[in-house]
Protein backbone atom coordinates (compact mmCIF):
# COMPACT_ATOMS: atom_id res chain seq x y z
CA UNK A 1 0.00 0.00 0.00
CA UNK A 2 1.53 3.31 -0.96
CA UNK A 3 0.66 6.74 0.21
CA UNK A 4 0.48 9.01 -2.73
CA UNK A 5 0.84 12.72 -2.66
CA UNK A 6 -1.08 14.47 -5.33
CA UNK A 7 -0.56 17.85 -6.77
CA UNK A 8 -3.19 19.89 -8.40
CA UNK A 9 -1.46 20.89 -11.57
CA UNK A 10 -1.94 20.50 -15.27
CA UNK A 11 -0.43 17.29 -16.55
CA UNK A 12 1.92 18.94 -19.06
CA UNK A 13 5.30 18.04 -17.69
CA UNK A 14 8.30 18.01 -19.97
CA UNK A 15 11.77 17.51 -18.72
CA UNK A 16 15.05 16.67 -20.29
CA UNK A 17 17.57 16.24 -17.55
CA UNK A 18 16.52 16.53 -13.97
CA UNK A 19 19.20 15.35 -11.64
CA UNK A 20 19.64 16.45 -8.11
CA UNK A 21 23.24 17.22 -7.33
CA UNK A 22 24.68 18.21 -3.95
CA UNK A 23 24.70 21.92 -3.39
CA UNK A 24 28.48 22.24 -3.56
CA UNK A 25 28.65 21.07 -7.14
CA UNK A 26 25.92 23.01 -8.85
CA UNK A 27 24.99 22.02 -12.35
CA UNK A 28 22.58 23.65 -14.67
CA UNK A 29 19.38 21.77 -15.06
CA UNK A 30 16.90 22.54 -17.74
CA UNK A 31 13.33 21.78 -17.07
CA UNK A 32 10.19 23.31 -18.28
CA UNK A 33 7.13 22.84 -16.25
CA UNK A 34 3.75 24.37 -16.46
CA UNK A 35 1.72 24.54 -13.35
CA UNK A 36 -1.44 26.16 -12.19
CA UNK A 37 -1.33 28.95 -9.72
CA UNK A 38 -1.79 27.22 -6.45
CA UNK A 39 -0.98 23.81 -5.18
CA UNK A 40 -1.86 21.90 -2.12
CA UNK A 41 -0.62 18.53 -1.04
CA UNK A 42 -2.90 15.65 -0.28
CA UNK A 43 -1.90 12.30 1.01
CA UNK A 44 -4.21 9.58 -0.26
CA UNK A 45 -4.12 5.86 -0.91
CA UNK A 46 -4.08 4.56 -4.48
CA UNK A 47 -7.32 3.19 -5.76
CA UNK A 48 -5.86 -0.01 -7.15
CA UNK A 49 -4.28 -2.69 -5.07
CA UNK A 50 -1.43 -3.50 -7.44
CA UNK A 51 2.05 -2.19 -6.80
CA UNK A 52 2.29 0.22 -9.72
CA UNK A 53 2.13 3.86 -8.78
CA UNK A 54 -0.77 5.56 -10.45
CA UNK A 55 -0.46 9.28 -10.55
CA UNK A 56 -3.76 10.90 -11.17
CA UNK A 57 -3.39 14.62 -11.32
CA UNK A 58 -6.68 16.30 -10.77
CA UNK A 59 -7.63 19.46 -12.52
CA UNK A 60 -9.41 21.50 -9.97
CA UNK A 61 -9.66 25.10 -11.06
CA UNK A 62 -8.71 27.50 -8.33
CA UNK A 63 -10.04 31.03 -8.20
CA UNK A 64 -7.79 33.25 -10.21
CA UNK A 65 -5.31 34.98 -7.97
CA UNK A 66 -2.41 37.25 -8.71
CA UNK A 67 0.65 35.26 -7.89
CA UNK A 68 4.11 36.69 -7.30
CA UNK A 69 7.26 34.62 -7.38
CA UNK A 70 7.30 34.25 -3.63
CA UNK A 71 3.80 32.89 -3.34
CA UNK A 72 3.84 29.90 -5.59
CA UNK A 73 5.30 26.71 -4.44
CA UNK A 74 8.72 26.30 -6.03
CA UNK A 75 9.38 23.03 -7.80
CA UNK A 76 12.72 21.33 -7.36
CA UNK A 77 14.00 22.43 -10.73
CA UNK A 78 12.35 25.82 -10.67
CA UNK A 79 14.19 28.46 -12.66
CA UNK A 80 14.04 30.75 -9.66
CA UNK A 81 16.37 28.41 -7.75
CA UNK A 82 19.09 28.48 -10.37
CA UNK A 83 22.05 30.81 -10.59
CA UNK A 84 22.24 33.40 -13.32
CA UNK A 85 25.34 35.17 -14.55
CA UNK A 86 24.25 38.23 -12.65
CA UNK A 87 24.15 36.20 -9.43
CA UNK A 88 27.60 34.82 -10.15
CA UNK A 89 28.94 38.28 -10.87
CA UNK A 90 27.72 39.60 -7.55
CA UNK A 91 29.17 36.63 -5.68
CA UNK A 92 32.47 37.17 -7.45
CA UNK A 93 32.41 40.85 -6.53
CA UNK A 94 31.62 39.99 -2.93
CA UNK A 95 34.42 37.44 -2.71
CA UNK A 96 36.87 39.86 -4.31
CA UNK A 97 35.91 42.47 -1.72
CA UNK A 98 36.52 39.98 1.05
CA UNK A 99 39.88 38.99 -0.40
CA UNK A 100 40.93 42.63 -0.60
CA UNK A 101 39.91 43.20 2.99
CA UNK A 102 41.61 40.09 4.30
CA UNK A 103 44.61 40.73 2.11
CA UNK A 104 44.95 44.19 3.58
CA UNK A 105 44.77 42.71 7.02
CA UNK A 106 47.46 40.12 6.39
CA UNK A 107 49.71 42.56 4.61
CA UNK A 108 49.32 45.12 7.37
CA UNK A 109 49.96 42.48 10.01
CA UNK A 110 53.15 41.44 8.24
CA UNK A 111 54.35 45.00 7.84
CA UNK A 112 53.69 45.91 11.46
CA UNK A 113 54.62 42.46 12.72
CA UNK A 114 51.45 42.16 14.79
CA UNK A 115 49.46 38.96 14.73
CA UNK A 116 47.50 38.60 17.92
CA UNK A 117 45.46 41.75 17.47
CA UNK A 118 44.28 41.07 13.91
CA UNK A 119 43.51 37.45 14.79
CA UNK A 120 41.58 38.56 17.87
CA UNK A 121 39.74 41.15 15.80
CA UNK A 122 38.86 38.45 13.28
CA UNK A 123 37.49 36.25 16.03
CA UNK A 124 35.40 39.13 17.37
CA UNK A 125 34.12 39.63 13.83
CA UNK A 126 33.08 35.99 13.65
CA UNK A 127 31.26 36.19 16.99
CA UNK A 128 29.51 39.48 16.25
CA UNK A 129 28.48 38.30 12.78
CA UNK A 130 26.35 35.64 14.48
CA UNK A 131 24.67 38.31 16.61
CA UNK A 132 24.20 40.55 13.59
CA UNK A 133 22.64 37.71 11.60
CA UNK A 134 20.20 37.08 14.43
CA UNK A 135 19.11 40.69 14.79
CA UNK A 136 18.67 41.13 11.06
CA UNK A 137 16.81 37.84 10.73
CA UNK A 138 14.53 38.78 13.65
CA UNK A 139 13.73 42.14 12.08
CA UNK A 140 13.01 40.69 8.65
CA UNK A 141 10.90 37.83 10.05
CA UNK A 142 8.76 40.09 12.20
CA UNK A 143 8.34 43.44 10.53
CA UNK A 144 7.46 44.80 7.13
CA UNK A 145 6.12 43.00 4.11
CA UNK A 146 6.78 42.76 0.40
CA UNK A 147 5.91 46.43 -0.07
CA UNK A 148 8.60 47.64 2.34
CA UNK A 149 11.21 49.69 0.47
CA UNK A 150 14.63 48.14 -0.17
CA UNK A 151 14.07 44.96 1.85
CA UNK A 152 10.57 44.08 0.62
CA UNK A 153 11.80 41.32 -1.67
CA UNK A 154 13.89 39.85 1.13
CA UNK A 155 10.95 39.84 3.52
CA UNK A 156 8.90 38.01 0.94
CA UNK A 157 11.74 35.56 0.41
CA UNK A 158 11.99 34.87 4.14
CA UNK A 159 8.25 34.28 4.27
CA UNK A 160 8.56 31.86 1.37
CA UNK A 161 11.42 30.16 3.18
CA UNK A 162 9.26 29.54 6.22
CA UNK A 163 6.58 28.00 4.06
CA UNK A 164 9.00 25.85 2.04
CA UNK A 165 12.18 25.50 4.11
CA UNK A 166 13.57 22.73 1.96
CA UNK A 167 13.84 25.03 -1.06
CA UNK A 168 17.05 26.54 0.25
CA UNK A 169 18.78 23.18 -0.12
CA UNK A 170 17.84 23.16 -3.81
CA UNK A 171 18.94 26.69 -4.45
CA UNK A 172 22.18 26.97 -6.39
CA UNK A 173 25.15 28.56 -4.67
CA UNK A 174 25.29 31.96 -6.36
CA UNK A 175 21.51 32.25 -6.36
CA UNK A 176 21.54 31.72 -2.61
CA UNK A 177 24.31 34.16 -1.79
CA UNK A 178 24.07 36.91 -4.39
CA UNK A 179 21.93 39.35 -2.37
CA UNK A 180 24.31 39.25 0.58
CA UNK A 181 27.30 39.41 -1.75
CA UNK A 182 25.86 42.56 -3.27
CA UNK A 183 25.35 44.16 0.14
CA UNK A 184 28.90 43.24 1.17
CA UNK A 185 30.35 44.66 -2.05
CA UNK A 186 28.64 48.00 -1.53
CA UNK A 187 29.46 48.37 2.14
CA UNK A 188 32.85 46.71 2.46
CA UNK A 189 34.64 47.63 -0.76
CA UNK A 190 34.93 51.33 0.16
CA UNK A 191 36.23 50.36 3.60
CA UNK A 192 38.66 47.86 2.11
CA UNK A 193 40.06 50.44 -0.29
CA UNK A 194 40.31 53.32 2.13
CA UNK A 195 41.34 51.74 5.40
CA UNK A 196 44.65 49.94 5.75
CA UNK A 197 44.59 49.10 9.41
CA UNK A 198 45.14 45.32 9.70
CA UNK A 199 43.07 45.04 12.87
CA UNK A 200 40.07 46.86 11.41
CA UNK A 201 40.36 44.92 8.17
CA UNK A 202 40.66 41.66 10.08
CA UNK A 203 37.40 42.42 11.85
CA UNK A 204 35.62 43.75 8.78
CA UNK A 205 36.80 40.96 6.51
CA UNK A 206 35.75 38.13 8.80
CA UNK A 207 32.52 39.82 9.91
CA UNK A 208 31.35 40.50 6.38
CA UNK A 209 32.60 37.13 5.17
CA UNK A 210 30.52 35.34 7.78
CA UNK A 211 27.51 37.45 6.90
CA UNK A 212 27.93 36.80 3.21
CA UNK A 213 28.29 33.06 3.70
CA UNK A 214 25.58 32.89 6.36
CA UNK A 215 23.09 31.86 3.69
CA UNK A 216 25.34 28.89 2.90
CA UNK A 217 25.59 27.99 6.58
CA UNK A 218 21.82 28.39 6.71
CA UNK A 219 21.36 26.06 3.75
CA UNK A 220 23.62 23.49 5.40
CA UNK A 221 21.53 23.78 8.57
CA UNK A 222 18.57 22.62 6.49
CA UNK A 223 20.49 19.71 5.04
CA UNK A 224 20.42 16.12 6.19
CA UNK A 225 23.46 14.64 7.87
CA UNK A 226 23.90 11.94 5.24
CA UNK A 227 23.99 14.45 2.39
CA UNK A 228 26.29 17.03 3.90
CA UNK A 229 30.08 16.94 3.51
CA UNK A 230 31.66 15.38 6.62
CA UNK A 231 33.62 18.57 7.31
CA UNK A 232 30.42 20.61 7.44
CA UNK A 233 28.82 18.11 9.82
CA UNK A 234 31.91 18.22 12.01
CA UNK A 235 31.83 22.03 12.13
CA UNK A 236 28.14 22.00 12.98
CA UNK A 237 28.66 19.53 15.78
CA UNK A 238 31.58 21.54 17.09
CA UNK A 239 29.33 24.60 17.33
CA UNK A 240 31.32 26.56 14.79
CA UNK A 241 28.49 26.54 12.30
CA UNK A 242 24.82 26.76 13.24
CA UNK A 243 23.53 23.27 13.90
CA UNK A 244 20.64 21.58 12.13
CA UNK A 245 18.88 20.97 15.43
CA UNK A 246 19.12 24.55 16.60
CA UNK A 247 17.87 25.94 13.35
CA UNK A 248 15.02 23.43 13.16
CA UNK A 249 13.75 24.92 16.42
CA UNK A 250 13.41 28.25 14.66
CA UNK A 251 11.14 26.63 12.09
CA UNK A 252 8.63 25.50 14.66
CA UNK A 253 5.80 27.70 15.99
CA UNK A 254 5.88 30.29 17.44
CA UNK A 255 8.89 31.04 15.20
CA UNK A 256 10.37 33.41 17.74
CA UNK A 257 13.70 31.91 18.75
CA UNK A 258 17.03 30.70 17.39
CA UNK A 259 17.37 33.56 14.96
CA UNK A 260 21.16 33.46 14.60
CA UNK A 261 22.47 31.57 11.59
CA UNK A 262 26.26 31.90 11.49
CA UNK A 263 27.51 29.82 14.40
CA UNK A 264 24.39 29.97 16.57
CA UNK A 265 26.58 30.76 19.55
CA UNK A 266 24.34 33.64 20.61
CA UNK A 267 21.03 31.77 20.35
CA UNK A 268 20.93 30.31 23.81
CA UNK A 269 21.82 33.59 25.50
CA UNK A 270 19.40 35.68 23.44
CA UNK A 271 16.53 33.26 23.96
CA UNK A 272 17.17 32.66 27.63
CA UNK A 273 17.23 36.36 28.38
CA UNK A 274 14.27 37.13 26.13
CA UNK A 275 16.27 39.80 24.35
CA UNK A 276 14.12 39.72 21.24
CA UNK A 277 10.93 39.76 23.27
CA UNK A 278 12.22 42.84 25.09
CA UNK A 279 13.01 44.56 21.80
CA UNK A 280 9.58 43.64 20.47
CA UNK A 281 7.88 45.09 23.53
CA UNK A 282 9.86 48.32 23.38
CA UNK A 283 9.14 48.70 19.66
CA UNK A 284 5.46 48.00 20.31
CA UNK A 285 5.23 50.74 22.92
CA UNK A 286 7.21 53.19 20.84
CA UNK A 287 5.58 52.59 17.46
CA UNK A 288 2.44 50.55 18.08
CA UNK A 289 3.66 47.91 15.61
CA UNK A 290 3.18 44.27 16.64
CA UNK A 291 5.74 41.73 15.44
CA UNK A 292 4.45 38.81 13.40
CA UNK A 293 5.53 36.28 16.02
CA UNK A 294 2.93 37.61 18.46
CA UNK A 295 0.05 36.50 16.31
CA UNK A 296 -1.00 33.04 15.31
CA UNK A 297 1.12 32.21 12.29
CA UNK A 298 -0.60 33.25 9.07
CA UNK A 299 -1.02 30.57 6.45
CA UNK A 300 1.81 32.07 4.40
CA UNK A 301 4.12 31.35 7.30
CA UNK A 302 3.22 27.79 8.19
CA UNK A 303 5.47 25.18 6.66
CA UNK A 304 3.96 23.16 3.89
CA UNK A 305 4.75 19.59 4.91
CA UNK A 306 5.89 17.23 2.20
CA UNK A 307 6.77 13.59 2.08
CA UNK A 308 10.02 12.48 0.48
CA UNK A 309 8.08 10.53 -2.19
CA UNK A 310 6.51 13.76 -3.31
CA UNK A 311 9.88 15.32 -3.97
CA UNK A 312 11.04 12.22 -5.87
CA UNK A 313 7.90 12.02 -7.96
CA UNK A 314 8.58 15.39 -9.56
Amino acid at each position, binding site marked *: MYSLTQHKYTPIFHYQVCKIRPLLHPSRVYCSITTTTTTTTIISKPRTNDKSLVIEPRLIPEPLTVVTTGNHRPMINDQSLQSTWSHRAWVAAGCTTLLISLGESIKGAMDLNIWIEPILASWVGYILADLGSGVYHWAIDNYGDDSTPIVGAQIEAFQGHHKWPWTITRRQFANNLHALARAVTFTVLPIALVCHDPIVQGFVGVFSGCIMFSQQFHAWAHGTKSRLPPLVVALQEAGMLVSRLQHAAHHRPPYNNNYCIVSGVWNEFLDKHKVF*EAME*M*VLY*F*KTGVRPRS*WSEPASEWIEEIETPSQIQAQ
Partner: protein
Amino acid sequence: MASLTLPNHYLPTLLRPHSATNPSSQNLPLPSTPPNSHFFGLKLSHSAVSSIPSSSSLKPSIFAKVSKGSKPPNFTLKDQNGKNVSLANFKGKPIVVYFYPADETPGCTKQACAFRDSYEKFKKAGAVVVGISGDDPSSHKAFASKYKLPFTLLSDEGNKVRKEWGVPGDFFGSLPGRETYVIDKNGVVQLVYNNQFQPEKHIDETLKILQSL
Protein backbone atom coordinates in the same frame (compact mmCIF):
# COMPACT_ATOMS: atom_id res chain seq x y z
CA MET B 1 15.34 43.35 56.92
CA ALA B 2 17.64 45.12 54.51
CA SER B 3 15.95 47.75 52.47
CA LEU B 4 16.63 47.63 48.83
CA THR B 5 15.32 49.32 45.76
CA LEU B 6 16.93 47.90 42.64
CA PRO B 7 20.45 48.79 43.70
CA ASN B 8 22.28 50.60 40.95
CA HIS B 9 25.69 49.23 41.56
CA TYR B 10 24.44 45.70 41.12
CA LEU B 11 22.33 46.05 38.02
CA PRO B 12 23.84 46.77 34.63
CA THR B 13 23.24 50.39 33.62
CA LEU B 14 20.84 49.47 30.88
CA LEU B 15 18.52 47.66 33.21
CA ARG B 16 18.05 50.30 35.82
CA PRO B 17 14.46 51.50 36.13
CA HIS B 18 13.91 54.98 34.86
CA SER B 19 13.30 57.84 37.19
CA ALA B 20 12.87 60.55 34.59
CA THR B 21 9.17 61.15 35.10
CA ASN B 22 8.92 59.75 38.56
CA PRO B 23 11.28 61.35 40.97
CA SER B 24 9.86 59.35 43.82
CA SER B 25 11.29 56.07 42.57
CA GLN B 26 14.57 56.64 44.27
CA ASN B 27 17.40 54.16 44.33
CA LEU B 28 19.10 53.51 47.59
CA PRO B 29 22.44 51.89 46.91
CA LEU B 30 22.18 49.18 49.51
CA PRO B 31 23.51 45.67 49.19
CA SER B 32 21.02 43.03 48.13
CA THR B 33 20.82 39.29 47.79
CA PRO B 34 21.73 38.67 44.18
CA PRO B 35 18.85 37.58 41.98
CA ASN B 36 19.44 34.69 39.59
CA SER B 37 19.62 36.87 36.55
CA HIS B 38 19.60 40.57 36.11
CA PHE B 39 16.24 42.12 36.65
CA PHE B 40 14.25 38.93 36.62
CA GLY B 41 12.47 38.70 39.88
CA LEU B 42 13.41 41.42 42.26
CA LYS B 43 11.57 41.55 45.51
CA LEU B 44 11.32 45.07 46.75
CA SER B 45 10.83 45.40 50.44
CA HIS B 46 10.97 48.63 52.29
CA SER B 47 11.10 48.86 56.04
CA ALA B 48 11.80 51.94 58.14
CA VAL B 49 13.83 53.80 55.56
CA SER B 50 11.53 55.59 53.17
CA SER B 51 12.34 57.13 49.81
CA ILE B 52 14.44 60.23 49.88
CA PRO B 53 12.47 62.91 48.11
CA SER B 54 14.16 64.37 45.10
CA SER B 55 14.88 68.06 45.27
CA SER B 56 13.54 68.45 41.75
CA SER B 57 10.14 67.01 42.68
CA LEU B 58 7.27 69.46 42.42
CA LYS B 59 4.36 67.15 43.19
CA PRO B 60 4.25 66.01 46.81
CA SER B 61 1.50 63.51 45.96
CA ILE B 62 3.91 61.24 44.12
CA PHE B 63 6.60 61.39 46.74
CA ALA B 64 5.29 58.40 48.58
CA LYS B 65 5.99 55.47 46.32
CA VAL B 66 3.86 52.51 47.33
CA SER B 67 6.03 50.03 49.12
CA LYS B 68 5.76 47.28 51.67
CA GLY B 69 4.21 48.49 54.86
CA SER B 70 2.57 51.52 53.31
CA LYS B 71 -1.07 52.10 52.49
CA PRO B 72 -1.57 52.79 48.80
CA PRO B 73 -3.59 55.80 47.69
CA ASN B 74 -7.14 55.06 46.56
CA PHE B 75 -8.02 55.07 42.88
CA THR B 76 -11.17 54.86 40.80
CA LEU B 77 -10.79 53.36 37.36
CA LYS B 78 -13.11 51.87 34.75
CA ASP B 79 -13.22 48.11 34.43
CA GLN B 80 -13.72 46.08 31.26
CA ASN B 81 -17.46 46.74 31.39
CA GLY B 82 -17.05 50.46 31.76
CA LYS B 83 -18.04 50.38 35.41
CA ASN B 84 -16.17 52.52 37.93
CA VAL B 85 -14.18 50.46 40.41
CA SER B 86 -12.36 51.84 43.44
CA LEU B 87 -9.65 50.26 45.53
CA ALA B 88 -11.77 51.16 48.55
CA ASN B 89 -14.47 48.74 47.29
CA PHE B 90 -12.26 45.84 48.32
CA LYS B 91 -11.68 46.87 51.91
CA GLY B 92 -11.71 43.99 54.33
CA LYS B 93 -10.21 41.42 51.99
CA PRO B 94 -6.75 40.80 50.62
CA ILE B 95 -6.25 42.16 47.12
CA VAL B 96 -3.64 41.42 44.48
CA VAL B 97 -3.12 44.42 42.22
CA TYR B 98 -0.92 43.60 39.26
CA PHE B 99 0.31 46.26 36.86
CA TYR B 100 1.17 44.93 33.41
CA PRO B 101 2.38 46.56 30.17
CA ALA B 102 -0.44 45.88 27.70
CA ASP B 103 -3.21 43.52 26.63
CA GLU B 104 -2.46 40.96 23.91
CA THR B 105 1.30 40.96 24.37
CA PRO B 106 3.01 37.62 25.00
CA GLY B 107 4.15 38.21 28.60
CA CYS B 108 0.88 39.80 29.70
CA THR B 109 -1.13 37.01 28.14
CA LYS B 110 0.97 34.41 29.95
CA GLN B 111 0.52 36.31 33.19
CA ALA B 112 -3.24 36.75 32.84
CA CYS B 113 -3.69 33.11 31.94
CA ALA B 114 -1.55 32.07 34.88
CA PHE B 115 -3.71 34.14 37.25
CA ARG B 116 -6.77 32.60 35.63
CA ASP B 117 -5.47 29.06 36.01
CA SER B 118 -4.68 29.59 39.69
CA TYR B 119 -7.77 31.66 40.36
CA GLU B 120 -9.33 29.02 42.61
CA LYS B 121 -6.32 29.25 44.91
CA PHE B 122 -6.74 33.02 45.14
CA LYS B 123 -10.42 32.61 45.89
CA LYS B 124 -9.63 30.05 48.54
CA ALA B 125 -7.33 32.57 50.19
CA GLY B 126 -10.22 35.02 50.07
CA ALA B 127 -8.27 37.32 47.77
CA VAL B 128 -9.37 39.45 44.85
CA VAL B 129 -7.21 39.80 41.74
CA VAL B 130 -7.17 43.06 39.79
CA GLY B 131 -5.07 43.73 36.69
CA ILE B 132 -4.20 47.28 35.63
CA SER B 133 -2.75 48.53 32.35
CA GLY B 134 -3.00 51.63 30.22
CA ASP B 135 -5.37 50.01 27.71
CA ASP B 136 -8.96 51.20 27.38
CA PRO B 137 -12.01 49.25 28.63
CA SER B 138 -12.86 47.85 25.21
CA SER B 139 -9.36 46.39 24.86
CA HIS B 140 -9.74 44.85 28.32
CA LYS B 141 -13.10 43.43 27.41
CA ALA B 142 -11.74 41.75 24.30
CA PHE B 143 -8.68 40.47 26.17
CA ALA B 144 -10.73 39.14 29.08
CA SER B 145 -13.26 37.45 26.86
CA LYS B 146 -10.66 35.91 24.55
CA TYR B 147 -8.79 34.28 27.40
CA LYS B 148 -11.81 33.83 29.68
CA LEU B 149 -10.31 35.84 32.50
CA PRO B 150 -12.49 35.69 35.61
CA PHE B 151 -11.07 38.79 37.31
CA THR B 152 -11.30 42.53 36.93
CA LEU B 153 -9.12 44.49 34.53
CA LEU B 154 -8.90 48.22 35.07
CA SER B 155 -8.03 50.96 32.58
CA ASP B 156 -5.38 53.29 33.86
CA GLU B 157 -5.54 55.59 30.89
CA GLY B 158 -2.66 58.01 30.90
CA ASN B 159 -0.91 55.73 33.41
CA LYS B 160 -1.89 58.07 36.25
CA VAL B 161 -2.20 55.41 38.92
CA ARG B 162 0.99 53.70 37.70
CA LYS B 163 2.87 56.96 38.26
CA GLU B 164 1.15 57.62 41.59
CA TRP B 165 2.15 54.24 42.92
CA GLY B 166 5.66 54.65 41.57
CA VAL B 167 5.71 51.53 39.42
CA PRO B 168 9.18 51.54 37.87
CA GLY B 169 9.54 51.16 34.12
CA ASP B 170 12.13 49.12 32.27
CA PHE B 171 14.74 50.25 29.78
CA PHE B 172 14.67 53.87 30.88
CA GLY B 173 10.90 53.96 30.78
CA SER B 174 10.55 52.57 27.28
CA LEU B 175 8.57 49.72 28.71
CA PRO B 176 5.91 49.97 31.45
CA GLY B 177 7.02 47.78 34.32
CA ARG B 178 5.38 44.55 35.40
CA GLU B 179 4.83 44.88 39.14
CA THR B 180 2.44 43.18 41.52
CA TYR B 181 1.28 44.41 44.93
CA VAL B 182 -0.32 42.22 47.56
CA ILE B 183 -2.43 44.29 49.94
CA ASP B 184 -3.77 42.67 53.09
CA LYS B 185 -7.30 43.07 54.45
CA ASN B 186 -6.21 46.09 56.47
CA GLY B 187 -5.12 47.87 53.34
CA VAL B 188 -1.38 47.54 54.00
CA VAL B 189 1.01 46.41 51.28
CA GLN B 190 2.71 43.15 52.19
CA LEU B 191 4.57 42.39 48.95
CA VAL B 192 5.88 44.31 45.97
CA TYR B 193 7.16 42.01 43.24
CA ASN B 194 8.72 43.13 39.97
CA ASN B 195 9.59 40.80 37.08
CA GLN B 196 9.17 41.82 33.47
CA PHE B 197 10.12 38.65 31.63
CA GLN B 198 9.07 35.84 33.93
CA PRO B 199 5.38 36.72 34.31
CA GLU B 200 4.28 33.40 35.76
CA LYS B 201 6.48 33.97 38.79
CA HIS B 202 4.13 36.72 39.93
CA ILE B 203 1.50 34.09 40.65
CA ASP B 204 3.85 31.90 42.70
CA GLU B 205 5.14 34.81 44.76
CA THR B 206 1.74 36.27 45.47
CA LEU B 207 0.22 32.93 46.44
CA LYS B 208 3.12 32.31 48.78
CA ILE B 209 2.57 35.57 50.59
CA LEU B 210 -1.21 35.15 50.67
CA GLN B 211 -0.85 31.80 52.34
CA SER B 212 1.17 33.41 55.10
CA LEU B 213 -1.25 36.28 55.72
